[in-house]
């Protein structure tokens, strides 16, 4: 058994249920891997452990990866979990934001680090970014519910789900539907690993693919497994179920049906490169490396 | 100034048992006439300081009461009527000599009086040390500063706890000559705890001799010597007679105490 680590990008939740299913079903163990899943958190960036080799693979996002590469990190994207970027602008039905054109004059709460994201969305849709008021918010939807902001920049699967569980049906505008093409939950590994630890990478990704396929087959079961595996994490089942359900359209598509979980097209890469350019990043298609997934899917 | 009312001190059934069970005062009944100087002498540890602290309102008696012209000590203290020089000088370390003395007037809510402060500093022989802080004064100098402070408010009740303990014999005589004129014309009731029998006779109108702990009155001697009493008076037979009486009472008090006599 070879011990390897997979660095998750956030606290445990169905966001990573595919990995839990792989553990649960022994798909990694059978492939000779002993995988530890390293939890993330607000002060636990993904990139450092991957650079230092503490984690073989990390779950990042194309913008984060591009930034790290610009800083000299030798990363490649070897899989794409979220075909559609999960960012939305969430708003309340009484004061909805349904299209980018609704943004000017609105107060949008977000982690300030995400400012470029909104900027990119505005320029993609010819909206005056300077007319949008950014309010720094962090962990919760409370400022929206308290009327402190008109919209929240957040994940479709995160704060809107929490609001729904509190009985608030929030309006969400998925940024991916308005030109914001950016791969999220991307699997990253270093050039060095790609050169020297291929078999481990293949085994790891094989487990992921099998896990996520199982997830798609029964999201409720995935949610139940998630809650059962981490009884101390304070998750509740209905929330995880709803999140699991909402995640599906972001992760699975005709493309994944045809080519398997984690795949991407050359067109998607070009679209990502254009979005990244708006974010001030210039990358080449070489950032994406298909070779591991090809092996996984026996291509 | 002289027409202030005199403040007699009455202790009725006064007793004090400290937290640790040490009985410092047995029921004690004593009256000190207003405007007079009374010396208290008694063996070390008999309760003299305790008595003064009770009179100043710094401690509460276990039983009995102290009355200063009908008022409780705290009430007289609040009027600024009391001043005390402790056995241990207790100057404020961060204030200069001058400000330490001036502080007494502030605390007693009396107007500042730099002239008086300077005069007192001169009288206790600390000329030139106005701006010196206590840490740079010698032991005897600190004690003299504390006396000056006690006099700075022209108190109606003056409690002096061994004020000259750290002062040399010569300075002591000089102080014994120079200081009483400061308070006697004011009708100040002065209680003077002292270890020196001669000093008691020289300064007081009356000497109360206390027994070892718990203090009882062993002797209550009037001192009828004329004033002023120059240092030479200590050699007169009348003076020596009273001193001898006091010393003998002191010795008697110790001998009467079975516990101590056994030691």
């Amino acid at each position, binding site marked *: 058994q070879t011990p390897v680590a997979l660095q998750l990008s956030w606290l445990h939740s169905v966001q990573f249920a595919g990995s839990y299913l792989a553990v649960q079903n022994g798909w990694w163990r059978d492939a000779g891997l002993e995988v530890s899943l390293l939890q993330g958190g607000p002060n636990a960036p993904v990139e450092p452990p991957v650079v230092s080799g503490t984690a073989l693979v990390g779950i990042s996002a194309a913008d984060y990866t591009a*930034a790290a590469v610009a800083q000299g990190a030798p990363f490649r994207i070897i899989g794409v979990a979220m075909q559609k970027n999960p960012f939305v602008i969430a708003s309340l039905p009484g004061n909805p934001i349904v299209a980018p054109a609704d943004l000017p004059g609105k107060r949008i709460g977000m982690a300030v680090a995400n400012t470029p994201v909104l900027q990119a969305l505005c320029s993609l849709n010819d909206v005056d970014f300077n007319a949008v008021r950014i309010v*720094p918010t962090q962990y919760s939807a409370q400022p929206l519910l308290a009327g402190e902001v008109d919209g929240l920049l957040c994940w479709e699967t995160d704060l809107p789900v929490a609001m729904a569980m509190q009985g608030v049906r929030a309006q969400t505008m998925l940024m991916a539907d308005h030109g914001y093409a950016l791969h999220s939950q991307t699997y990253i590994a270093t050039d060095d690993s790609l050169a020297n630890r291929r078999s481990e990478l293949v085994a790891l990704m094989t487990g992921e693919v099998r896990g996520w396929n199982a997830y798609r087959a029964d999201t409720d079961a995935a949610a139940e497994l998630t809650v059962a595996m981490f009884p101390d*994490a304070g998750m509740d089942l209905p929330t995880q179920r709803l999140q699991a359900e909402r995640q599906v359209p972001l992760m699975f598509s005709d493309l994944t049906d045809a080519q398997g979980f984690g795949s991407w097209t050359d067109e998607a890469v070009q679209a990502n490169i254009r979005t990244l350019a708006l974010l001030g990043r210039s990358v080449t298609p070489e950032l994406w490396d298909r070779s591991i997934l090809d092996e996984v899917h026996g291509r | 100034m002289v027409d202030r009312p005199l403040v007699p001190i009455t202790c009725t059934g006064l007793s004090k048992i400290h937290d640790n069970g040490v009985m410092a005062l047995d029921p004690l009944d004593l009256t000190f006439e207003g405007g007079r100087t009374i010396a208290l002498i008694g063996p070390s540890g008999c309760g003299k300081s305790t008595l003064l602290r009770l009179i100043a309102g710094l401690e509460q008696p276990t039983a009995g009461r102290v009355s200063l012209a009908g008022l409780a000590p705290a009430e007289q203290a609040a009027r600024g009527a009391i001043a005390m020089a402790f056995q241990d000088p207790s100057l404020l370390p961060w204030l200069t000599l001058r400000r330490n003395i001036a502080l007494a007037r502030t605390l007693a809510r009396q107007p500042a009086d730099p002239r008086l402060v300077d005069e007192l500093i001169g009288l206790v022989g600390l000329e030139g040390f106005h701006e010196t802080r206590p840490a740079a004064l010698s032991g005897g100098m600190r004690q003299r500063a504390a006396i000056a402070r006690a006099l700075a408010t022209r108190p109606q009740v003056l409690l002096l706890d061994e004020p000259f303990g750290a002062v040399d014999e010569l300075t002591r005589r000089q102080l014994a000559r120079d200081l009483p004129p400061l308070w006697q014309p004011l009708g100040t009731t002065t209680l003077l705890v002292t270890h020196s029998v001669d000093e008691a006779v020289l300064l007081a109108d009356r000497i109360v001799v206390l027994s070892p702990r718990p203090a009882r009155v062993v002797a209550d001697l009037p001192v009828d010597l004329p004033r002023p009493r120059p240092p030479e008076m200590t050699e007169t037979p009348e003076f020596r007679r009273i001193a001898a009486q006091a010393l003998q009472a002191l010795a008697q008090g110790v001998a009467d105490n079975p516990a101590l006599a056994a030691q």
Partner: protein
Amino acid sequence: MTTLARQAGSPFALLMLWQLAAAATAGRFLLAGPVEVLAWLSANPGLVGRALSVTLANAAWGFLTGNVAAILIAAVAMGWPRVLPLLTGLALVVFCLPLIATGPILRVMMGPGNGPQIVLAALAVYYTTLIPLLAGLRAAPAGWFDLVATYGRGRLAELVHIRARSSLPYLLAGLQISAPAAFLGAMVGEFTGAERGLGVLTIRFARDLNVPALWSLAAVAAAISIAAYLAIGAAGKRLQTERPPVILAPPRLSRGSAPDRLGHAGLLAVATLALWWGGMEALGLDPFFAKRPPDLLAALTVAPEAAAMWQALLRAAGETAAFVLPGYAAGLALGAGLAMLLSLVPALAELVTPLAIALRSVPIVTTAPLVVLLLGRGAAGTIALVALMVFFPTFVACQHGLRQAPGQVLDILRSYGAGPLRQMLHVRIPAMLPAFFASARIGVPAAILAVTVAEWLATGRGLGNLMTLSASLSDYTMLWLTVVLATLASILGYAGVAWAERRVLRVFAPEQVDR
């Protein structure tokens, strides 16, 4: 009223206030009252119990190691005073390191276990104990040291026979400051990727809008911290039987001169660089996120975007300075003012102290929405957040300091019928100054760390924002530059406080100066 009823009165009043505040903000997902909290806790005892046991154990280890380290450093400094400036300087530098920079390094070094949480808890406390302890180790009358010297014994005997004991009131202040800080440190340490604990649950429940759960965690953290604080206080009371002495110490000519201090600064700079660079090399940390001094130097000089770097840094620093100074001043004033108030009106202590401890032990992410609601995200809110995070050490240290008023001198005042207010003015405040300045030294790096958190939470400006931004962009060069800048600011501020302290204490407590 019986004493029992009186003792129960204040906690009851506190709970009532809390419930009222919760009722007033109902439906806004801000605050849950004690009733909801109790209900949630009784419905989830296992979950809370398990999380608490993890966090509490980490906090306890951090408390222990941090304080032992502080005591050892202080002991070394007393035994060998020439290293004192270097030791306190390094201690300050280490204390200045923000979680956002240390978190990833600790996690990479120590793995997924409890190591980082314990280290972060220890880092949160060692400094707040060290500084008051150093003041306490000096707070003794010269006569006691003379006794040791007549027997020809040196610093070690002084330390063992005098200082160890006479410093207890100050050590106690340090430990009481530490108690909530250790707990909070352990909780916040969990943000770096820990699997279990109250901190992990806090993020979870904040995102889930589970307000009763969020405030239940806050209540548990506060309760534990209050209990630890009170236990330390009670233990201290049993040790502290005698009245504080009058501390007479002869005035001394200043021994430390300006060139000396420059020398110390130079030595500190060299030692810091050596430890930083050498440490990173020795641990083999990847230069991607563990930047070495030359990396930063290059970024500021030869790199093509050096000018932009400078500009970004200086702009952020300017924005931060505008908040940190008033916040620091407000925190000191609040802490010292509250301590004085409680000394004058002791009955208020039972109401104010638990609240103060709670504010210090509950993660800012829980309380920030309340502050923002009351004061907004502008200057007032940010300054208030900084003040809230700074005031506690000052509050505790000043309370202990006020109790250091020499009993004999207070007797003098009482013999003049001076009441509590004049005792405060003439004796207690002067006697408090060494403790106050100790807390003012603590406050400098604390304020700078606090403002970076507040900026990230509330304003989105300044160094705090630059730090988070750089971290999310993997711009570790910029991140470390901001860390260096914040550290330099702390050192400068600290030197300023030390300068003022020397002038004031030369008069009020010469035993504290130039040892």
